[in-house]
């Protein structure tokens, strides 16, 4: 039995239209708190190393944090060329999330920042400085040069490390002061022997917008803590945010990849529209001849087939932006350097709300043992720390 052309064409059209929904890219998995690195796809390995490294740091598992960050930095520190996953991510029929994740610049910066803290903890301020410089380098590829390499802390710490290494840190200090528009930064005190690295709040989240999710966007999350107060050895130091990761995430500007995704979106839209037009035209042409096997029937069939092919190409095109996110990052970064005599000290770190009131649930207590000698004692405290 031969199906008449209009019925066949309409049936195929419905099938094609039903299959036209854009395949959804894997959204960022929420943090599980356990290592899934070995079971996760290779392209997500760095993402989980980032997350687990920060969790380990907050638990005080410093060796684990170093191991994970070192491995992640191997991926982000080189020049990524000829990567098959990256090539696939640029193709029409694969999503951006098929590329090996190394994160957006603000995420890469944070990997270097935390590794720098760990180097300084180990008494290697020069390698810490190298990490802060690499972090600043990661932030240098902004569309608007006004926001290029504008992390206050990275330059400030670069200068501090240089000063402690008997080099000149004044240039880095000036750059930090220029980037710190709101606050006057404290001058370097070479006698300070306790360095507090504080972070608090919740990192920005990525989401995609646009007709096909081809535009990468960032959403600011509500952060309870907006500043911190350190109380130790009779000193009270109020520490305000030096850097805001939401600001950093949203001031990078357009990416080269955004152009590729935009082209994919145009392709998807154009092939869909062309497919619709061809299928409808073919159906109209075919049905107008009432199955008389005329030339118009053949032309209608051809148009409908071309339309179906076009719709298939459209459906298979994935312009969605990559929204995998290092989602346990903080929003705010702070730093304070103080001087304490040798011996044991109990430090209390209070995190404060937007009005400056202490948030008792977030208060952390840290025991600091200062040995005799000139080595710096580096303390990392987060409002999410679980080891204090």
């Amino acid at each position: 039995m031969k199906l008449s052309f209009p019925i066949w064409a309409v049936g195929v059209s419905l099938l094609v239209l039903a299959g036209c929904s854009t395949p959804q890219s894997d959204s960022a998995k929420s943090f599980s708190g356990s290592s899934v690195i070995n079971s996760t796809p290779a392209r997500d390995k760095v993402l989980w190393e980032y997350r687990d490294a920060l969790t380990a740091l907050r638990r005080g598992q410093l060796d684990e944090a170093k191991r994970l960050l070192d491995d992640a930095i191997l991926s982000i520190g080189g020049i990524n060329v000829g990567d098959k996953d990256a090539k696939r991510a640029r193709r029409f029929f694969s999503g951006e999330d098929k590329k090996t994740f190394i994160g957006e610049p603000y995420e890469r910066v944070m990997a270097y920042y935390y590794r720098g803290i760990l180097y300084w903890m180990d008494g290697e301020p020069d390698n810490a400085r190298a990490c802060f410089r690499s972090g600043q380098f990661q932030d240098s590829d902004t569309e608007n040069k006004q926001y290029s390499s504008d992390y206050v802390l990275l330059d400030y710490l670069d200068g501090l490390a240089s000063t402690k290494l008997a080099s000149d840190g004044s240039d880095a200090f000036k750059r930090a002061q220029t980037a710190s528009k709101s606050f006057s930064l404290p001058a370097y005190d070479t006698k300070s022997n306790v360095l507090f690295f504080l972070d608090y709040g919740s990192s920005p989240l990525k989401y995609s917008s646009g007709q096909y999710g081809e535009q990468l966007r960032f959403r600011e999350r509500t952060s309870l803590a907006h500043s911190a107060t350190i109380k130790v050895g009779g000193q009270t130091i109020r520490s305000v945010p030096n850097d805001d990761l939401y600001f950093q995430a949203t001031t990078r500007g357009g990416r080269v990849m955004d152009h590729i995704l935009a082209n994919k979106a145009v392709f998807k839209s154009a092939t869909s529209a062309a497919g619709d037009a061809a299928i409808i035209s073919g159906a109209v042409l075919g049905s107008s001849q009432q199955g008389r096997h005329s030339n118009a029937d053949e032309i209608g069939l051809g148009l409908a087939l071309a339309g179906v092919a076009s719709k298939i190409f459209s459906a298979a095109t994935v312009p969605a932006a990559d929204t995998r996110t290092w989602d346990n990052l903080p929003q705010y970064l702070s730093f304070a350097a103080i001087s304490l005599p040798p011996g044991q000290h109990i430090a209390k770190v209070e995190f404060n709300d937007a009005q400056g009131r202490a948030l008792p649930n977030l208060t952390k207590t840290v025991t600091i043992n200062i040995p005799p000698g000139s080595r710096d004692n580096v303390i990392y405290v987060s409002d999410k720390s679980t080891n204090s």
Partner: protein
Amino acid sequence: MKHKNLFLPFSFLAVTALFAGCATSGVRNPSGVRVTEMRPDERGFVAGTGVESQDLVAVTDKMARSILSTPEIANAQGIPRVVLEPVVNDTRFPINKNIFLTRIRTELNTKARNKVRFLAREQMKVLEHERDLKQSGAVTSNSDPNAVEFKGADFFLTGKLEGMTTRTSRGTSDYVLYSFQLIDARTSDIIWEDSAEIKKQGLEDAAYR
């Protein structure tokens, strides 16, 4: 009837042409540009990557050869004793700094035995503990345990890594200067100094830009 036979191929051709017209354009070097090692005096098209094993080998080979040709070492009366001091990293690349001095030491110990000798200062705690055990009679000794036999340094060998980075839309370039010094422990004279330069550049895949 002829046009009926041609219509279907023509339709697919038209669709193919449509797709071809929609191909990605406007992105330079979408696959990136491979990292290219260049002479330091060669002007590159942009900038590069960090300190790698081939740099370590090239630099330390050069330094070891250079040290041995220094008159103070080559013509020394007796065997000069050298202590390694940590290398300072002033680049943007976190590195294992000791590896440079370790390789220079092993190169010299392997290829120029008895021309220069290194003192194991990083093992002093263990050595002092052993000496204390001998002095207290807890362990045996083949020589007078009270004699001071730990050697003093004739020279200190140290170094510094300094870097310069450039980044433009065309890529990244890194220049690293490796400089090493041999310092006379008695006079503070720098009796030998040499350097090596490496410049690299590259451009990342567009998926990461």
